[in-house]
C-alpha cells in the first residue's frame, strides 16, 4: 500500500508538464513513434525539461498485443528521448505508471520521471479478437461472444441491485459526448439526445452501442518531478496528493458484479494518503472512467462520493454538469475523448492538469483546486487506478 512516508526525507511530487497528440478516431498519418514523439515534445516544452539530460527514469505503459510487437518495450525509449537511459514498461493504465514514477521519485534517488501511454488501436485489424483473447480461456472464452458481454452482465446486475434505468444511463452518454465538443483532444464531441443513445443497436443486452466508448488513437506524456525541481523551473505545478491502484479479482466466479469493488479499494488507499474523508466536499472536479456509460455512476458510488444507487439522481439534477457542484467528466470522459485503452487514465490526468493550471479555456470549472482521476482497465479486468491532484 502506498502511504506518505513520515518525516523530513519525503519530498512532494508534482506534474510539471503534459503533452497530448490526438485523440482521433484513427491517426493514419503519423507512425506510432512519430505520434509519441509529438506528445513528448509538447510535454517537455511545458515542463521546461531537456529529456536527454534531465529525466532520470522513463515509464512506458503499453502491451505487446495492443502494439502488435512482441517485447514491445524494447521499442519504447527513443521516441521519448530515452535512448540508452533507464526505461521500463508497465503493462497497465497510465495512472499505474504514474504510481510507479511517484514511488521512484519518493525514494529520493530520482528527481524527474516521465510517464507515457498510447493507443494505436486503429492499427489493429482484429481488435475484437484481441480483446476476446483477454478472457479466461478455460471457463469464459470458449463461448463465441463479444467481450462486451462481460460488461453487459455487470450492467444488468448493477441496474437490478440499485434500480437504475437505461434512460438515466443514456444521460451519462449525452452529457459526456456534449462536454467533448469543447475539448480539443476529444475525438467524439457531439450533440446527441437520450433517444439517440437508446436507439442505437443492442450489442449485448442491456448494453447498446451508444453507451460503449468508441476506440481512438492518441498518446499522452506526463512529466513528474520533486519539489526541488519545481522551484528551479518556470512551470505551473500540479501536486499529487494521493495515488493508488488495485484489482478485485480476475476471476468471473468470485468478482463483485454489482459495486466495482476495485474502485473502493483504490479510494481506501488514496484517500488515506491525501487525507480525504468526504470526497464530495473536498474534491472540486472528477474525471471518472466511463468506458461504458453506467460505469460513471457505478464508479462514483464505489469511490464513496455517493451511496450505492444515489449517483443517478445527482446526474439528473444536473450536479455533474460543468456548472454543477460536482462536475464529472468535463473532458467528455472516455466516451467523448475516445477509448484510448491504457492511455485512458492519462486522458483523465490531462484534463485535471488543464483545469488546475488555468489552461482549460471554455471548459474551465471556476474555483477548482482539487481533482480526482479514476481509471478502469476495461473488460475483462477489475483493475482500477486513482490519483488525487491539487493546485496547492
Amino acid at each position, binding site marked *: 500500500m502506498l502511504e506518505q512516508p513520515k518525516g523530513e526525507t519525503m519530498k512532494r511530487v508534482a506534474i510539471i508538464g503534459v503533452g497530448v497528440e490526438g485523440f482521433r478516431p484513427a491517426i*493514419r*498519418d503519423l507512425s506510432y513513434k512519430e505520434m509519441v514523439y509529438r506528445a513528448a515534445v509538447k510535454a517537455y516544452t511545458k515542463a521546461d525539461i531537456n529529456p536527454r539530460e534531465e529525466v532520470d527514469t522513463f515509464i512506458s505503459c503499453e502491451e505487446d498485443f495492443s502494439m502488435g510487437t512482441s517485447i514491445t518495450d524494447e521499442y519504447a525509449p527513443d521516441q521519448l528521448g530515452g535512448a540508452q537511459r533507464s526505461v521500463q514498461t508497465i503493462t497497465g493504465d497510465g495512472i499505474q505508471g504514474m504510481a510507479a514514477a511517484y514511488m521512484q521519485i519518493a525514494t529520493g534517488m530520482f528527481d524527474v520521471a516521465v510517464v507515457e501511454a498510447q493507443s494505436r488501436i486503429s492499427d489493429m485489424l482484429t481488435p475484437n479478437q484481441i480483446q476476446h483473447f483477454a478472457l479466461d480461456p478455460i471457463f*469464459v472464452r470458449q463461448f463465441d461472444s463479444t467481450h*462486451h458481454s462481460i460488461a453487459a452482465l*455487470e450492467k444488468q446486475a448493477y441496474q437490478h441491485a440499485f434500480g437504475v434505468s437505461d434512460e438515466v444511463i443514456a444521460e451519462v452518454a449525452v452529457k459526456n459526448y456534449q462536454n467533448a465538443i469543447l475539448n480539443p483532444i476529444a475525438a467524439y464531441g457531439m450533440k446527441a439526445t437520450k433517444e439517440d443513445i437508446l436507439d442505437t443497436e443492442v450489442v449485448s*443486452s442491456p448494453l447498446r452501442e451508444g453507451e460503449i466508448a468508441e476506440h481512438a488513437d492518441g498518446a499522452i506524456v506526463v512529466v513528474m518531478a520533486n519539489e526541488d525541481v519545481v522551484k528551479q523551473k518556470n512551470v505551473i505545478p500540479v501536486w499529487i496528493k494521493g495515488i493508488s491502484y488495485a484489482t478485485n479479482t480476475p476471476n468471473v*466466479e468470485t468478482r463483485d458484479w454489482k459495486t466495482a469493488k476495485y474502485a473502493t479499494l483504490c479510494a481506501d488507499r488514496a484517500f488515506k494518503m491525501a487525507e480525504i474523508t468526504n470526497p464530495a466536499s473536498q474534491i472540486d472536479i472528477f474525471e471518472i472512467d466511463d468506458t461504458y456509460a453506467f460505469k460513471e455512476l457505478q464508479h462514483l458510488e464505489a469511490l464513496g462520493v455517493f451511496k450505492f444507487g444515489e449517483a443517478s439522481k445527482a446526474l439528473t439534477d444536473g450536479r455533474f454538469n460543468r456548472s454543477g457542484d460536482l462536475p464529472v467528466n468535463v473532458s467528455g470522459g472516455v466516451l467523448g475523448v475516445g477509448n484510448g485503452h491504457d492511455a485512458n487514465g492519462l486522458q483523465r490526468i490531462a484534463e485535471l492538469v488543464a483545469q488546475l493550471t488555468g489552461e482549460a479555456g471554455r471548459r474551465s470549472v471556476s474555483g477548482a483546486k482539487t481533482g480526482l482521476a479514476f481509471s478502469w482497465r476495461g473488460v475483462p479486468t477489475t483493475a482500477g487506478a486513482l490519483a488525487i491532484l491539487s493546485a496547492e
Partner: protein
Amino acid sequence: MLPKRRTMTDAPTHEVRGGFPVHFHYTVGIVGEIFFNGLKERKLLAVTCKECSKTYFPPRMYCEDCFAELTNEEFKTLEQEGTVESFTKTYKDHRGNSLSEPYYLALIKIKGSDTVFFHKLINVDEPNIGMIVKPVWSETTKASLFDIIGFEPA
C-alpha cells in the same frame, strides 16, 4: 530556417501488413481435471475452504481469500439447481460480427456454492434475475464445458 512541415491529408500510401497466428493448449490443472471428469459423469463438483467456509464451483486448488490449499479437501457433488444472478442476450460473436442466432449468457449461482458459474441460458424467452435454473446435459459427455448444453428454467 523553418523545417519543412510534412503532413498527410489522405490515407497513407505505404503501410506494412503483419500478424502472427497464436494458438495454445491451456492446461486445466489438477483440480480442473477433477471438475471436468465430474462433468463427464454429469456431476457438479465443488470444494469448500476449511478455513473460511467459502464453497467454490468450479473447484479450485486454493482459496483466493485465505490462500489455503484445497487439493486434499473432499470434493462434494452439488444439487443440479442454480439461481440466475445476471444475464445478457449477446448479439455479436467474438469478432464483433452479428450472430445469426443471438443467445443468452448468464452468471449462475449453483445451490450450495458461494461463487457464480458462467454459462448459457436456454429454452427461455425472458429470463430474470433470481430465476431458478437447472443444467441440460448433452447426450454424450466428454469432460467438456459443453457437456452442459445450457441451463433452463427448473
